[in-house]
């Protein structure tokens, strides 16, 4: 069982232009920094990126926008990025906006092998246009489809060589459902450990979902909005 790769370059070596990628993280929290750098270095383009947000101008997916590698974003909120806005308004970039819970759940359903499900989110809004509508328990619901991706790329705190992943605090966000959803899932971790080092009761993503794993380096973990209280 060989899941461990040397680094991000090896992990993403077969990602081609035109691929659909899921990229884990929420805002800049828990994003796969090493793989984003490697994708920029490799220079693949025409990518469809499924990610809740689109980074900021000089970090995260924002870096891939700058290099014009992204054809389409599938996101719920994309506000923090001037280059994004420019490309969108000029028609260089397509954006598919999806309610955040529907987005998270469409990803999670892919990892559960459920091709379609019903949610009330967006009923009566423009999101419902063209979708099948059904009433359950007196409430209207939209049928939503699971989201497919050629590759899911996530960053975890710790992982073992079998691909079992553990996350810290709010970094689980979209990364956990994406890790389970990718046709191929690549995980970068802050610390790669041997099988048995992680408590089997405390693993957030079982290794069966993970195809490649490596220990990343040089994590910046940039904070998007530093908000502090004064010490008491």
């Amino acid at each position: 069982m060989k899941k461990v790769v040397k680094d991000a370059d090896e992990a993403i070596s077969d990602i081609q232009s035109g691929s659909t990628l899921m990229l884990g993280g929420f805002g800049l929290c828990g994003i796969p920094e090493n793989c984003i750098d490697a994708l920029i270095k490799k220079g693949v383009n025409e990518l469809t990126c499924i990610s809740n947000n689109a980074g900021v101008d000089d970090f995260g997916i924002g870096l891939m926008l700058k290099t014009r590698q992204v054809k389409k974003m599938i996101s719920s909120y994309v506000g923090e990025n001037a280059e994004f806005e420019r490309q969108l308004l000029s028609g260089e970039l397509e954006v598919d906006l999806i309610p955040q819970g529907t987005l998270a759940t469409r990803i999670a359903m892919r990892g559960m092998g459920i091709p379609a499900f019903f949610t009330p989110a967006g009923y009566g809004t423009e999101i419902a246009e063209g979708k099948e509508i059904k009433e359950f328990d007196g409430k209207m619901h939209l049928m939503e489809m699971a989201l497919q991706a050629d590759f899911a790329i996530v960053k975890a705190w710790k992982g073992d060589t079998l691909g079992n992943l553990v996350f810290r605090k709010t970094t689980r966000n979209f990364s956990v459902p994406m890790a389970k959803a990718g046709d191929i899932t690549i995980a970068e971790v802050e610390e790669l450990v041997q099988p048995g080092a992680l408590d089997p009761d405390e693993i957030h993503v079982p290794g069966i979902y993970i195809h490649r794993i490596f220990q990343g380096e040089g994590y910046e973990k940039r904070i998007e909005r530093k908000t502090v209280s004064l010490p008491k």
Partner: protein
Amino acid sequence: MALDKYGIAKRIAKELKDGYYVNLGIGIPTLVANYIPEEIEVIFQSENGMLGMGPYPTENEMDADLINAGKETVTVLPGGVFFDSAESFGMIRAGKVDLTILGAMEVAENGDIANWKIPGKMVKGMGGAMDLVASAKNIIVAMQHTNPKGESKLLPACTLPLTGVGCVKKVVSDLGVFDIKDGAFVLLERAPGVSVEEIIAKTAGKLIINGEIPEMEA
């Protein structure tokens, strides 16, 4: 005198009950956390994936791995829990969150809400708002009664693209507190010093005024 944003937050805090799980939107709703009555315990949910959200950290406590749905650094209280965003919206959709407080651009007399998109302007996205309004058991909107042009935001029907339909139960504006019931705004309380006449003048949607309307308590 109309309430300022702190006043609106303070009034909304009175709607909280012991044991409530509460989701606070960005803006005025976030301020509600500062006015929780001493005698009750409420737990804040942040839809990116946590329960038990605490106050902002000190400079030393700040952790890039711990943010709220507004991408701000926060802390976690004892008994807090982290989970992923699919689970987070699962609990929202299943009605486990008792109260959602959020802002709005427009609210209609039938409970429709618009708060995500202005045609012709750059659209940033709906984030979790559509999921929250479609699923919350109880939704309170915190907002200014009129827009910067002085036009009412409490309308017969929303003019902007909708976020959700028939979902808002209560509005707390700078001028008063309103239930939304049977296709109308029912005035419950006036802000201190605000007259019923002013509220009538600034409310475009159907307004119901039953008897003497009390001024809200400080």
